[in-house]
């Protein structure tokens, strides 16, 4: 049994955990690249990353400076918008704090410690960060990545495989799929800011595994197939959807409300597993657009399945009261 509100918190804790992990990884990949590039070029590429992470509006609103590490700061330590690593870590911590009584103590403690570390890095001023050549941001990125790894380690090793786990894992894998599709989009086109295949694989933590199969200079098409359709790679969208489907099946026996997202997850998984991906990727924008919106709808459906029914009419509609007629089920 799980409270609807707790299910919701765990779903979002999972999503934010994945988000913090992914942004930190992308920033770490980009920071390495920045050091070896011309300032303008580096800046363009960083802007492209901001776009891929869906933070265009926040970026404009934040009036980010022009220094080479300003974009990194925006992505790592700026808590004025919800898309930075520091904000995502805070959201993980707040959501886990709500369910602190039902998750392993270590999971809460890891999240709390990571939050404390990230907050102290944040308090170093932007000017100081710029002076040290992004040193502080780099250290926070390392801290964040390590923290995310231990969080997922504790989650995997000590959380009971109950409804709470199902929601948290579904949240993580949905967020991962959504970000993977968005990052793939940033490898399309011809401009100098387009990310090459290796960069896309590094962003998605798949470089090493893909190198063995695709060699050293994979083309976008091959990378896209790898990241969308690979059956063994826990970073591929197909793999993620398969797991989401399993988690929703775990829940479906008790919670009727997950029937809709479960169907949708199955349909989308089948699309990737049995669809003619080569043909579909002939028009990559259209295919990625479709996948992006289908995943967003799926995530919205899973979220909707956790929302408690609030009106009395709905409350009455959802349970039949057996028993002795005086109101108390026997």
């Amino acid at each position, binding site marked *: 049994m799980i*409270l609807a509100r707790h299910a919701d918190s765990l779903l979002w804790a999972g999503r934010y955990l994945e988000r913090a992990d992914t942004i930190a990884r992308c920033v770490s990949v980009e920071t390495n690249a920045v050091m070896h590039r011309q300032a303008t070029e580096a800046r363009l590429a960083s802007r492209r990353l901001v776009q891929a992470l869906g933070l265009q509006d926040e970026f404009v609103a934040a009036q980010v400076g022009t220094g080479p590490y300003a974009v990194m700061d925006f992505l790592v330590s700026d808590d004025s918008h919800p898309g930075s690593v520091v904000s995502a870590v805070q959201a993980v911590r707040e959501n886990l*704090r709500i369910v602190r009584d039902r998750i392993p103590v270590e999971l809460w*403690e890891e999240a*709390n410690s990571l939050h404390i570390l990230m907050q102290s890095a944040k308090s170093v001023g932007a000017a100081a960060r710029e002076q040290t050549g992004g040193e502080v941001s780099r250290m926070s990125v390392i801290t964040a990545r390590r923290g995310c790894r231990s969080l997922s380690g504790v989650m995997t090793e000590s959380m009971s495989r109950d409804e709470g786990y199902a929601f948290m894992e579904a949240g993580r894998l949905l967020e991962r799929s959504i970000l993977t599709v968005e990052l793939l989009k940033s490898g399309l086109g011809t401009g100098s800011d387009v990310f090459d295949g290796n960069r896309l694989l590094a962003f998605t933590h798949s470089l090493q595994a893909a190198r063995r199969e695709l060699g050293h200079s994979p083309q976008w098409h091959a990378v896209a197939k790898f990241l969308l359709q690979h059956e063994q790679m826990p970073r591929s969208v197909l793999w993620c959807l398969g797991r989401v489907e399993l988690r929703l099946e775990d*829940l479906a026996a*008790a*919670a009727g409300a997950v029937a809709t997202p479960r169907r949708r997850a199955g349909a989308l998984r089948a699309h990737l597993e049995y669809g003619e991906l080569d043909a579909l990727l002939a028009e990559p924008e259209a295919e990625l657009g479709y996948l992006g919106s289908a995943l967003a709808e799926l995530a919205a459906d899973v979220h909707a399945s956790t929302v408690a029914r609030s009106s009395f009419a709905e409350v*009455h509609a959802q349970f039949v009261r057996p028993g002795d007629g005086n*109101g*108390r089920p026997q």
Partner: protein
Amino acid sequence: MAELQRSDADQLAYDEAFDRDGNVRPLYAAIVERFSNFDAAELRRREGIIEEEFRRQGITFTVYGDSQGTERTWPMDLFPRLIAATEWQEIERGLAQRVTALNRFLADIYTGEGAAMADGVVPAWLVQSSDGFERNAFGVSVPHDAHCVIAGIDLVRDAEGQYRVLEDNLRNPSGISYVIENRAAMTRAFPRVWEDHTVEPVSQYGRMLRTALESVAPTGAGDKPLIVILTPGIYNSAYFEHAFLAREMGVELVEGPDLVVDEHVVYLRTIEGLVPVDVIYRRIDDTFLDPVSFRPDSTLGVPGLLGAMRAGTVTVCNAVGNGVADDKAIHPYVTDLIRYYLGEEPILPNVETYVMWEPDQREAAFERLDELVIKPVGESGGYGIVIGRNATDEELANARAEIEADPRNWVVQEVVELSTLASMCDDVLEPRHLDLRPFVITGERTQVFPGGLTRVAMRKGSLIVNSSQGGGSKDTWVLAPQGETQAAT
């Protein structure tokens, strides 16, 4: 070696560790010996370990109105408070006796015949005029008459070392989680101090409370009643404790909107639909509990909850209306209530209190107001208190006028010189004033949890032990009988 300061020879208060001649009391001999082996730097280092650990674990409390934003780590002083086994047995009996009588009193008021009022033990008008008196609670009975399942009784030790009851907390006493976390922290920071003592464990609270809560489930709840803790949410000052207790008991931690009442049954909103609830350990105040019966603007409560309680489908702990029995104006009558209901002499005396609506007591108090403590009945947390010996003539005259205008709202107490104990201040261990809040659990029977929360005023001479006002806490050891002999030898 860290300097362990004796209490001043002219100190009026009782010192827990040293007698009036400055000799270590036998009870504290071993721990004083241990601590005198640490220098100040070493003690600071261990203090750092505790602080860091509390921060990492998120063992915090929230200070309202603090611009720093809210969460502060729990303050714990390194030097533990010790209570001898024989001493504790006396306290334990006294507390069980007191809480038993208070529960009888509450049952008498709300579901009984008001016998204590009819027989003139407590004036009926005083009961009815109490802010904590709740007409909505009339006729709502509680299994085993356990109106107060969790009580926190504040004890102080006077200049002779006698424990006295300063205050009863029968509504939502908090602090038990810190008792348990203090012990855990002490164990980590001083792994070897346990070699000299056998200390009563404190880890059993979750089981103890759960058993009590199960025992007050409504008849018909079955043998595995569904228990929940109702919290106002993560911004409440005691949220850490709420989550801690839910974890220790293995029950759900819920907020008002997670519960819904339909036809006098309370349900939990889960992803599987609605699940009926049997027992609610609520950590929100009476007036927020049910917007239908109390404050209509409350968003923390559950509409219709009181109806469900009345229908007997759910038990809410602590019961509604307990505030009448921990009213400061009722406090002076509690010893008489013990005699009345139990036919026994009270084991723990009250702090001597004068009620202002009795002309004789008022006049006597007015004659020596500059030696006494004047307390408004309706306040808590130390607000509005006038300490006679520190007050100006004008302040005393004002207090006098206010008492005459509304005698129901004031009590006057003898000054209690709170006992002191060595506490880490800068780089020395200096005596600081402290109190003790033991917790008393009532289900089928009344049990006292060993020890309790020792709160300490960290400012020299201060009697304010409240954590929101800079007070600290101490791990509190009740020694097992064999531990005492060991410590004494």
